[in-house]
């Protein structure tokens, strides 16, 4: 049966349904008055029960009962109606025409405009293998269809033919190098051949996707994963935060990215937050100092309390060129919770908290912890 006939059948069924009830209307069950009277009776009964339950005093019972009566009286006085008859035939014709014409007009307005032979000819429930064959046949005739190559690649990958998938994706890449979906799928398939490692070619494809659209949420998410695997937690955090910002608030992916960020921040704050200070002390200075001297390295706030946020004190003789400050070295506020600090390096013969006349001290410029975790300083 063709489309048109099926639609006509549906319209016919709709009209028949409406016409049936025009000629055999449903019975009116109860009137407003009957309903209000019954409800008022029940309300009076409930009021009497309320007296038994102690929910209204006996002295006020009569007043409340009168209120119910007055309400009923005012409700009954509002009723007035006289039913007029209709001509069912006239209405049946009118409604039938309306249903037929308007449904056809609205559907014509909304239905797909393309010659949908490709859509209707293909069975909707092809197996993956059949679909691959069908797609290959399509590509024989349309070898320049990059999207189709990408689809083929994805299907082959899902069928476990990774090598074939890579060939298809390569063709797709040559035809539609700026297609973000294709680039990211290609990157994922390539990464799967490297035990899920995105470094190298997959990373390059992700970078290309970002060049096409620096706001591609999926690309940003993958950049974050690559960065996290490389240990670059800063970049991972930045990428995921941007992806989060770009996602609609009700988007379910948001929770996944929030979860990743949450893990990252907890991980950073509890385990990995370190500020590395690469320190170069000139030979001249070292020559002047005793092996009993101390090296004190600390981070302090730009303004406010002079008390260090985090501090390390080691014998100068144990110094090996690098000092790391972390939350475990914090005195009051956590280092990981600070945004900007000054790093102070002091070589002290006493190791006392306040600077002595014989101490050598240098202070770094402002260190933004959101941007860097490494500070290079020289003591000359």
């Amino acid at each position, binding site marked *: 049966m063709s489309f048109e006939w*099926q*639609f006509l059948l*549906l*319209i016919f069924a*709709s009209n028949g349904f409406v016409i*049936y*009830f025009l000629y055999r*209307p449903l019975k*009116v*069950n*109860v009137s*407003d008055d*009957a*309903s*209000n009277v*019954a409800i*008022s009776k029940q*309300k009076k009964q*409930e009021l009497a029960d309320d007296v*038994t*339950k102690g*929910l*209204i*005093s006996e002295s*006020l019972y009569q007043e*409340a009962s009168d*209120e*119910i009566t007055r*309400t009923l009286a005012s409700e009954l006085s*509002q009723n007035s*109606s006289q039913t*007029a*008859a*209709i001509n069912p035939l006239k209405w049946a014709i009118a409604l039938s025409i*309306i249903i037929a014409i*308007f*449904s056809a007009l*609205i559907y014509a307005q*909304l239905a*797909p405009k393309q010659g949908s032979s*490709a*859509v*209707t000819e*293909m069975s*909707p*429930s092809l197996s*993956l293998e059949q679909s691959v064959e*069908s*797609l290959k046949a399509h590509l024989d005739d349309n070898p320049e269809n990059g999207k189709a190559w990408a689809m083929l690649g994805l299907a082959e990958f*899902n069928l476990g033919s990774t090598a074939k998938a890579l060939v298809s994706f390569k063709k797709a890449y040559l035809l539609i190098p700026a297609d973000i979906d294709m680039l990211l799928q290609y990157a994922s398939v390539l990464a799967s051949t490297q035990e899920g490692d995105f470094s190298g070619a997959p990373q390059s494809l992700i970078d290309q996707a970002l060049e096409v659209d620096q706001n591609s949420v999926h690309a940003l998410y993958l950049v974050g994963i690559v960065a996290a695997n490389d240990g670059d937690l800063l970049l991972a955090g930045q990428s995921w935060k941007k992806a989060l910002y770009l996602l609609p*608030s*009700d988007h*379910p*992916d948001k*929770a*996944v990215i929030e*979860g*990743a960020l*949450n*893990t990252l921040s907890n991980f950073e704050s509890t385990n990995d937050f370190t500020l590395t200070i690469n320190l170069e002390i000139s030979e001249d200075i070292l020559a002047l100092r005793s092996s009993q001297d101390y090296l004190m390295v600390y981070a302090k706030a730009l303004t406010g309390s002079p008390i260090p946020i985090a501090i390390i004190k080691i014998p100068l003789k144990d110094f090996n060129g690098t000092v790391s400050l972390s939350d475990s070295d914090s005195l009051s506020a956590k280092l990981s919770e600070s945004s900007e600090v000054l790093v102070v390096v002091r070589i002290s013969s006493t190791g006392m908290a306040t600077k002595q006349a014989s101490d050598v001290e240098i202070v770094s410029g402002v260190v933004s912890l959101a941007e860097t975790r490494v500070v290079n300083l020289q003591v000359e």
Partner: protein
Amino acid sequence: MLIEIGHFALVLSLIFAILLVVVPTIGFYQNQTNLVQLAKPLIWGQSFWVLIAFAVLMNAFLMDDFSVKYVAENSNTQLPTLFKLSAVWGAHEGSLLLWVLILSVWSVAVSVFSKRVPSEVVNQILVVLGFVSVGFLLFLLFTSNPFEVLEIIPIEGRELNPLLQDVGLAIHPPMLYMGYVGLAVPFAFVVSALIRGKLDSTWLRWTRPWALVAWAFLTIGITLGSWWAYYELGWGGWWFWDPVENASFMPWLVATALIHSLSVSEKRGAFRQWTVLLAIGGFSLSLLGTFLVRSGVLTSVHAFATDPTRGLFILIFLIVIIGGSLALYSWRSVLIQKSNKFSLVSRETGLLINNVVLVSAMFCVLLGTLYPLILDSLNLGKISVGSPYFDAVFVPIMIPAVIAMALVPFMRWKKDTFSRLWSILRLDWACMVLIVVLTPFFITDNIFVLIAFYLFAWLTTHSLFLLTQRLRSKAKVTLAFLGMIVAHLGIGVFIIGATVTTQLGVEKDLKMTIGEPQTVAGYSFTLNAVEKFQAENYKGFRGNVIAMDNGRTIELIPEKRLYQTGMPMTEAAIDPSLSRDLYVALGESLGNGNWSMRIYYKPMVRWIWLGGIMIALGALLAAVDRRYRIKVKS
């Protein structure tokens, strides 16, 4: 072919909805009963075609018909059958179709279960529901068509968002929508009464059971959402004050006020104007929630301006519904019967206080939800309003409501005295004083937990005392009364669960090495192994964690799943009990056999959802009370 049938069915549904609005309305104004009586058949026809459309879309998912764009974007051949079904409402277009289907279900329910309501009233209500359906069907067909077909049929569909591949989320949206959309019924009762100019006892009586059922579904929907967020999102929270959550919570607060206000209006003829406004407000907030969630305005007000079609449509519809119903109210308010008198100390006043507090709390949530959007739209910067604001403002507002909730059921209608309350409740209050004095020594010194425990004890002792009092008297214990007791106890259970888990819960992010135990909240956790695994439509890592609880061994199997999209998903392992949950989520591999892992100890967290279930159960009990089976003579 079938897809076109589904699409055409949706068009026919729109035609039936339009006829539902037009034909009975002509009948009302020309007193032609046969036309008015067409309302029920027209709503049945409209609902039938929506059901057909929904079934066709569901079939497309089951058959992997990727010629349908919506199916191709949200399902693939690897997806398990259950999730293919739930994928139907997994994204925008399908969820709107579900919205329309549920509105149809409510409309048919009104037409079938309102045999004691006068036909004229029911028909007018169906017309209003039909008007709401027209708006949503137009929105669906012209901006969010789920039957759009693709020119090139993909051989495989995309992944359904992994977060949605969960049983909890398969049932959460339908339940929430049942509540959201159910508020359209009290709204329709009120608007139809305003249109008819007959704000009588009938509409008040029959609005309440529908409001109760809608409220029960909304409660279940919100509770399910909270439960799902807890176990699925992987960080153990149960409520985040997220705008999407607030969108469902605001109508809940107003609907709570409505069911109490309806009780007073119906029984004592007071607050009728207020009740009308609450019914309009409840559904308006449902629509506002839809606008916030569906327009993209929550992401950025500028995103709304970039792609305004959907948002603009809902905004216009929102203005028509809210503006139209308020205009109708101002026109017809003179017909609303004036409130009967009651004194300052009375049950009516108690319920009024409850209403004022609930609506104030709703405005507090509304402010916190809309304020960032207003600032953003005025280019005054981006701010985020989160739990610090809501905890500080919302919680204190609600405490008086909880205190009043226990007392009001003891109060008398019209007039009461404190001395009478003292005479019947002094024993109960003496118990409370004892509890307040002794609790800090025996339970905890955490002030928030203590306050929660006092509120719990306050509600529980009063509710049980009320029940005992009623059982001793000659009066019947009705289902409505039992429903009230259960719902109020549910609030107490929720309060204690929410506070204890928030205040006394322990959360640890740990670097765990295989074989090395770590202690959290007195439990020893050992990561025994992490192994790769492959499931039907995802693969990943599965951990084996052993927790030791006083010599008892608890095995926990958290998973880290990787779906086709590359999106990792955390599947937490939970050892549940009424006293506490142990919650373990597997994080990332840190190399050398080390894994990041999140371990939570959540005392009494289950009480939160138990409370939610009790509240919903209470509402359902009240809705099926015998008083709603009144016999009305024809």
